């Protein structure tokens, strides 16, 4: 078998850093990485994937965290015949010390292909490519180094949050502490799949939603404030003096016409503000979120499989988010109880709600209907009383 990869070599060209160079780098030391490169070249030639459905592999005591993966041509690629993925739960906010990262690298040098994703799209560190025999010893060394597996299958997937108060003045909640706390509380739900399908939790500190919680999480936590945003009029005037067209780029962009500018003072009608963040994003030195901080809780965000994509729906307009996060956890417990009871196989919670009805769901989780939950009320007359 040849080591030539003429098609992939084309992807070493161009200014953007090349993953092909990265695989070649790993391939110098590791035969599995070398076979990965050759499998990829074959896919580029054949225009189809050469990976088969995963088998059931894992580590003792866990039902997930490892994705079994086998090549469809093991005779041609013996070193990547089994090429399993390990999902490693990232520290909240993706902050690392170099000593922690070097430990991960050393373990993966010993037990895997040397290829990784920093990070996977759910947030975990993805260690790509190892054999069944290496899984347990690799896991044992990972836990020795302070790392654990993330979620896979019909389980709670690894929760993720934005950088939050660690380095962002917009954050209304401590996303790092919240995500770490929920992750530690729900280790069993993450590691032992037992639900109808996957369930994702994501937290963003403000409605800019840097982790796409509203699009990607079944349980969406988005920081909010309940009072008026804060305005530093001197800084507003400094922005104006430095050339920012406040009338056209701030005031007229406000979706609810809650702002007015007379050339020297920016006036807000607080009850009209819907916390969209545009004015704050445009003048971060002059405008800040309010001081009564908490979060809006939404439910049901997901990609199209199976009955179409959903953005999360508002469930609790405002909730205080303080350690030990009892209110969040009580709500999660009620949601999981109901979904576990009523959900069909491979049915995300939004699809169960859509099938059975939001009204029934609200009853089950003890939440009163409020107008913030809907864009508009129904127009048809077909009502159950």
């Amino acid at each position, binding site marked *: 078998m040849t080591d030539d990869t003429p098609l992939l070599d084309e992807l070493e060209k161009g200014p953007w850093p090349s993953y092909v160079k990265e695989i070649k780098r790993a391939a110098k030391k590791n035969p599995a990485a070398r076979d990965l490169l050759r499998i990829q070249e074959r896919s580029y030639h054949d225009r189809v994937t050469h990976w088969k459905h995963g088998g059931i592999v894992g580590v003792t005591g866990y039902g997930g965290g490892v994705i079994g993966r086998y090549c469809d041509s093991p005779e041609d690629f013996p070193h990547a015949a089994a090429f399993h993925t390990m999902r490693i739960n990232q520290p909240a906010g993706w902050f690392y010390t170099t000593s922690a990262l070097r430990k991960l690298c050393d373990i993966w040098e010993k037990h895997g292909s040397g290829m990784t994703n920093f990070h996977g799209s759910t947030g975990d560190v993805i260690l790509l490519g190892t054999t069944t025999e290496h899984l347990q010893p690799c896991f044992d060394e990972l836990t020795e180094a302070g790392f654990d597996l993330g979620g896979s299958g019909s389980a709670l997937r690894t929760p993720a949050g934005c950088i939050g108060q660690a*380095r962002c003045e917009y954050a209304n909640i401590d996303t790092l502490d919240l995500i770490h706390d929920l992750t530690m509380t729900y280790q069993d739900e993450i590691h032992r799949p037992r639900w109808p399908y996957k369930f994702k939790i994501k937290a963003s500190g403000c409605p800019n939603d840097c982790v796409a919680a509203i699009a990607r999480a079944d349980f969406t936590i988005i920081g909010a404030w309940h009072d008026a945003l804060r305005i530093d009029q001197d800084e507003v005037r400094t922005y104006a003096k430095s050339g920012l067209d406040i009338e056209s780029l701030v005031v007229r962009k406000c979706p609810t016409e809650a702002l007015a500018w007379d050339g020297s003072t920016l006036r807000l009608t607080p009850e009209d503000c819907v916390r969209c963040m545009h004015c704050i994003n445009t003048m971060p030195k002059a405008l800040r979120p309010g001081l009564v901080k908490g979060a809006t809780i939404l439910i049901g965000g997901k990609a199209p499989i199976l009955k179409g994509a959903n953005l999360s729906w508002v469930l609790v307009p405002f909730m205080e988010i303080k350690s030990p996060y009892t209110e969040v956890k009580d709500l999660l417990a009620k949601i999981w109880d109901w979904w576990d009871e009523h959900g069909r196989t491979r049915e995300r919670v939004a699809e169960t709600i859509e099938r059975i009805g939001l009204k029934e769901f609200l009853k089950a989780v003890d939440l009163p209907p409020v107008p913030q939950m809907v864009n508009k009320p129904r127009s048809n007359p077909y009502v159950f009383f």
Partner: protein
Amino acid sequence: MRRTDIGPPDYKTMLPDVIKNNYGRWKYHEIVRPGVLRHVSESGEEVYSIRAGSPRLVSIDFIRDLCDIADKHCNGHLRFTSRHNIELMTPDKSKVGPIISDLTKLGLPIGGTGKCISNIVHTQGWIHCHSAATDASGIVKAVMDAFYDQFTQMKLPNHLRISLACCINMCGAVHCSDLAIVGVHTRPPRPDHEKVLAQCEIPTTIQSCPTGAIRRHPDPNVKSVVVREDLCMYCANCFTVCPALPLANADTDGVAIYAGGKVPNARKPPMFSRMVVPYLPNNPPRWPEVVDVLKKIVDVYASSAKPTERLGEWIERIGWEAFFKRTEIPFTAQHIDDFTHAVETYRTTTQFKW
């Protein structure tokens, strides 16, 4: 005794001192230059964050190279962003230049901040996935080569986020991105009757189909299923539960392009991406047809949108009919929705452009 369920390392042990000392006390930030953020705390302390693009699919030696830079300049701390960028943080302004220079030596672009095209969130593709209808890393590399200058500069009307999913499972926020590339099948699964019995549970397989296209085999002696091809829309949900129903097809798999989605609530509420090109062929190694369509859309957006308009906001203002006209992308029968929320997309007003 084996340790289990220890969870991830505590983030508090991973934070640089300047972050720890000013946690929750940040006052404002500014973008000093593309790829460099300056955050200022109530305490008066500041932190500079230098952001660099990454191929995401990287070797452990790549991570070690980053660690060397973080050890040299940042007291052994670094982080990654939600779009797979690398960030090195320092309270010391004089270190910004040396950090940029060391990252540049590794061949990494500095940027990804503000009104730019940041890194692409994407899936595994042919590198590691059994259900991929296209590759991921290769298309991403080709697209980011084309938009390299948009990553390192901040010259767009607003942020532009691209993502890629190698099948319609869409691992990643592809359905709410300004531009999305999605791997698609265009032919129904081909049941392997001998394997169905061995590998699949027939009732589960039948139930997995959202359009009821999968039926029991009409011959009761054949313990398998048949697919009604007129009902199948190639979602591959059946293949996920039954490996004996493969859909992959070198000649007819490809990618679709979606546009106009967004996640933030700023100005307009979050929006779904909408189909703009139903199918382009898989053309490795550099998918030129895909790159060309994306470049065309970005060029028209960059030259016609108003400041602060995201791609989807611009399209809503000018109207989809104007979008198709200006980008010269043909509108086809496939663009008209016929799935669960279809009627919400049909026009119910006489307000439109010619």
